[in-house]
């Protein structure tokens, strides 16, 4: 955010695009959001729900680029507040609204949305069938769910899975096939499942390298302990992806 602030225009007004380099927490930046939106068929008139919306970056990108209205639902209070503030700062509050809510108990009417999106969010939710059922409930019949998430390969050891749970709150990780089955059981049709590990690998590698290159700055701001901890955790995660034990999947299905 500090970096974004230095980019303020002479008028002092920040635009949504000024934040895109900083507010896309998922892997792959705005390009990944664009691909997901195409899989979901997001159009100008689409009513979009972003589940686990984080800082609201993807929601603002879609609202700014496609002109649609996006509701972002986020569990974490600090993230929801930051999402709302950034959205106000870039003048998109009429198109992007933030609600604090739980993906397992969405506070929306049935059939309220045409599109439901989520990026690297479901990995933190243990009861994936319940989360998918909620997404289906709030979608119009014929509406589309599209999301990306971590996937586990058979080679991921139980101990590694347990470490991911303790360190990164990653739980009940699915394989490409088990996710496909869960989507079918939740009532989604025309299910698409793509392994995108090859897309994530360079992105994650670059993120880890950027963290390591910026160590001095990170230590100055957050302390050596935090820098080391992050290095250990994120390095472990990226190592699993490099080793072909963990990866990413892009999924979509029709309600």
């Amino acid at each position, binding site marked *: 955010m500090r970096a974004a602030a230095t980019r303020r225009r002479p008028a002092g007004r920040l635009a949504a695009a000024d934040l895109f380099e900083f507010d896309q927490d998922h892997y792959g930046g705005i390009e990944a959001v664009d691909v997901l939106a195409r899989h979901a068929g997001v159009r100008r008139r689409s009513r979009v729900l972003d589940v686990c919306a984080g800082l609201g970056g993807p929601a603002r990108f879609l609202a700014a680029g496609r002109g649609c209205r996006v509701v972002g639902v986020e*569990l974490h209070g600090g993230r929801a507040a930051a999402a*709302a503030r950034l959205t106000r700062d870039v003048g998109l509050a009429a198109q992007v*609204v933030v609600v*604090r809510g739980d993906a397992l*108990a969405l*506070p929306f*009417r049935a059939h309220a949305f045409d599109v439901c999106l989520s990026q690297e969010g479901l990995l933190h939710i243990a009861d994936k069938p319940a989360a998918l059922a909620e997404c289906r409930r709030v979608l119009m019949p014929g509406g589309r769910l599209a999301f990306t998430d971590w996937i586990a390969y058979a080679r991921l050891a139980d101990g590694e899975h347990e470490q991911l749970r303790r360190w990164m709150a990653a739980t009940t990780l699915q394989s490409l096939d088990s996710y496909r089955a869960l989507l079918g059981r939740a009532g989604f049709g025309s299910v698409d499942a793509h392994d995108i590990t090859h897309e994530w690998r360079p992105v994650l590698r670059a993120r880890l390298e950027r963290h390591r290159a910026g160590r001095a700055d990170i230590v100055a701001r957050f302390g050596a302990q935090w820098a080391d901890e992050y290095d250990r955790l994120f390095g472990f995660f990226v190592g699993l992806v490099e080793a072909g034990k963990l990866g990413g999947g892009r999924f979509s299905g029709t309600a």
Partner: protein
Amino acid sequence: MIDDELKAILVCPACKGDLRFEEQRIICPACRKAYPIRDGIPVMLINEAESWIGP
């Protein structure tokens, strides 16, 4: 604070029933819960709702 389009689709996360909107909170008369609105953000979390003893 909460726009009409959002009001039209918000329901109680617990019972999915209709809500009553006030300035600082959102009431579910069926569950007798009050969901707070903090800095303009509706907090629609069941375990953050206060009990509501309404009329």
